[in-house]
């Protein structure tokens, strides 16, 4: 038997004892049945009863039991039913011959039935292992972290050996238990020390028999090359030597697949990170050129206008002088806005502290409109905020910035003669504030991206529409307040854009508190 090498003599003895017990038991039953039947059937018929006993024993208990029961049946038949009875002597030469045939038939039948039984058992075990491996493959193919892969490895290995399994990671001097199956299994100092020893010596560690120093677990490296810092501990059911070759093979395959999967994951993570870094780099350079343009253009206009006034102030007409002064004023405001936006973005990125207090949404909108009116004099901003809106616990300054950015966009992207509408209404447990313009609307392809940092509708070489920070800032602020912002274009009236801000009513938790 293939498994003989892996079992020592005591296991073999146990198996032999169990087989003998089964043989004795079955044959005893056969003897009792035979004594009952003797009144009606011949000795030949009784010998068939013994054959049946051998077949039953072999098919239940395997090859060894088959042979043993065949011998026992032969002896019992001789002892109880062949004249002279109650001795092993045989009077009749013919009986001797048929008894010989019986022994041969019983032995052949027993061994065949036993082999069949053993093959069936090992086939079903192999099927179990294959199922185990295929489950494992399915699990690791969707795993998104090394931890998931190793947890799956531990669980499947535990199932393969039909006993507890644990995984240790080398974590500085002391190994840490990373996964265990069953999950509630106790890992004590003994196991950790053994794992530490394995890492320190760099050799796997065999389990010891109960009562001996050491532990019930055996320790193996998962993969010395691909996962040199992981050791798996296995305690097969039935003791330290009970791992079957199938289980052994399954565990090896599991470890191999797990380390391959972990390696693959590491590579794809590295690729992902490289891509993210490249994306980040691109974003950074977009920011730089965009900020450079947005800050330098107003600066250039201011410096140019001021130096022109100083150098030629006397020689240029008064109207032209006023034009230059107006340009200086406008550009200074523009510059201040850009700087404020950049500072806001920086603040938002480094984690924002909300200063929340009770405020009326109508007042916040009013202050944003008033601020817009300064930079867009003559523009009509129509406010339709429902009077019955409940007060909102929010950061009024930041929320004002949100509406200012929305109003500024609305004004920028619609004809200067068209009004910009601001509506506010209460919903079940939130309120909705819409900023509606009558401009050309947002191109359908752009809608998903308008809240991205540095997205700007006309992000041509000039980036004329600004750094594309306004909506990103608005989105971030509203998000901090537990609300949401979205764009609908064309709006309800079929033209223009509706920017819809939803804010929860009642005490709003800052997401930062988490």
């Amino acid at each position: 038997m293939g498994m003989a090498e892996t079992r020592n003599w005591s296991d073999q003895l146990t198996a032999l004892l169990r087989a003998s017990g089964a043989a004795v038991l079955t044959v005893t039953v056969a003897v009792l049945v035979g004594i009952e039947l003797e009144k009606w059937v011949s000795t030949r018929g009784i010998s068939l009863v013994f054959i049946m006993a051998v077949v039953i024993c072999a098919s239940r208990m395997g090859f060894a039991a088959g042979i043993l029961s065949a011998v026992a049946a032969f002896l019992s038949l001789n002892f109880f039913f062949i004249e002279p009875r109650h001795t092993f002597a045989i009077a009749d030469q013919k009986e001797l011959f048929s008894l010989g045939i019986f022994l041969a038939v019983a032995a052949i039948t027993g061994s065949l039935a036993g082999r069949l039984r053993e093959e069936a058992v090992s086939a079903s075990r192999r099927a179990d292992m294959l199922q185990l491996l295929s489950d494992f493959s399915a699990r690791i193919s969707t795993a998104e972290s090394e931890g998931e892969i190793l947890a799956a490895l531990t669980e499947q290995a535990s199932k393969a050996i039909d006993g507890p399994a644990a995984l240790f990671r080398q974590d500085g001097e002391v190994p840490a238990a990373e996964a265990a199956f069953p999950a509630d299994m106790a890992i004590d100092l003994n196991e950790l020390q053994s794992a530490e020893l394995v890492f320190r010596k760099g050799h796997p560690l065999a389990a010891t028999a109960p009562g001996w120093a050491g532990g019930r677990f055996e320790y193996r490296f998962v993969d010395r090359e691909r996962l040199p810092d992981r050791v798996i501990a296995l305690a097969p059911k039935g003791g330290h030597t009970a791992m079957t070759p199938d289980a052994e093979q399954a565990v090896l395959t599991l470890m191999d697949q797990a380390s391959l999967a972990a390696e693959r994951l590491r590579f794809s993570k590295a690729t992902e990170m490289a891509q993210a870094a490249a994306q980040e780099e691109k974003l950074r350079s977009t920011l730089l050129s965009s900020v450079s343009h947005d800050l330098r253009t107003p600066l250039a206009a201011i410096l140019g206008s001021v130096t022109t006034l100083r150098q030629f102030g006397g020689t240029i007409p008064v109207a032209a002088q006023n034009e230059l002064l107006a340009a200086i004023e406008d550009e200074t405001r523009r510059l201040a806005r850009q700087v404020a936006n950049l500072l806001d973005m920086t603040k938002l990125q480094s984690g924002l502290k909300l200063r929340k207090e009770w405020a009326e949404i109508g007042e916040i909108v009013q202050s944003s409109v008033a601020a817009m009116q300064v930079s867009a004099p003559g523009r009509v901003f129509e406010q339709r905020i429902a009077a019955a809106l409940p007060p909102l616990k929010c950061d009024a300054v930041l929320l004002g910035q949100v509406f200012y950015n929305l109003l500024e966009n609305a004004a920028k992207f619609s004809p200067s003669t068209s009004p910009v509408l601001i509506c506010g209404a209460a919903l079940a447990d939130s309120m909705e504030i819409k900023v509606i313009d009558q401009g050309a609307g947002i191109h359908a392809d752009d809608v998903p991206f308008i809240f991205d940092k540095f997205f700007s509708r006309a992000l041509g070489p000039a980036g004329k529409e600004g750094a594309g920070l306004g909506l990103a800032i608005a989105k971030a602020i509203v998000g901090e307040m537990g609300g949401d912002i979205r764009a609908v274009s064309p709006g309800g009236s079929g033209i223009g854009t509706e920017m819809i801000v939803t804010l929860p009513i009642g005490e709003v938790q800052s997401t930062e508190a988490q």
Partner: protein
Amino acid sequence: MSKLLRILIVDDEPQIQRFLRLGLEAAGYDTLLANDGAEGLRQSAAMNPDLVILDLGLPDMDGKQVLARLRQWSSVPVLVLSARDDEHEKIETLDLGANDYIAKPFGIGEFLARIRAALRTERSEPGETSHYQIGGLSIDVAQHQIELAGEPVKLTPKEFELLLYLTQNRGRVLTHRQLLAKVWGPAHGADKQYLRVFIGQLRQKLEADASNPSVILTEPGVGYRIAPDV
């Protein structure tokens, strides 16, 4: 008085257009405006300006593209306005045929000085003039003689050639590549080290304080120019 020189401003920022226009007109130039690259090219062809001011950031196309197209048929002096710090871009525009660049933000005085320099080099064809005067430095092209404050200065032929080329383009930046190609030949376009050594020698001989030059100015990362007004 002769006809006013006509300058085309290609820029999409109204505030920039405004002070450029007012400043240039106050300085005695006639101005034309174009809001984008296509309009700029059209006006360059139709109005035949004496100089083009070109912003690199335009709504319809890259300023460099405008420059490249313009250079296919026109040698009008081009002064590039750049809002960018990028040395590569400056070199690229100069190699594409821009006569000079000025980085935003800038004062109108500096800007007008660049305009004058670009117009001057355009109108005085190299080789026509046989004598140059830069502050106390006088250059006699025909005699290959240099005098500094009346005292003769000895220059090697390469040094003389380098100084002459810079002087002929006085006030205008010349890239390392342009200088190397002119003085050492096109094969030496990348040997910046030569240039650094020769500029150093020229400064030792010509500058009052070689470590703080006032005649041969460095444009970091781009090239050199002779100070427009010494």
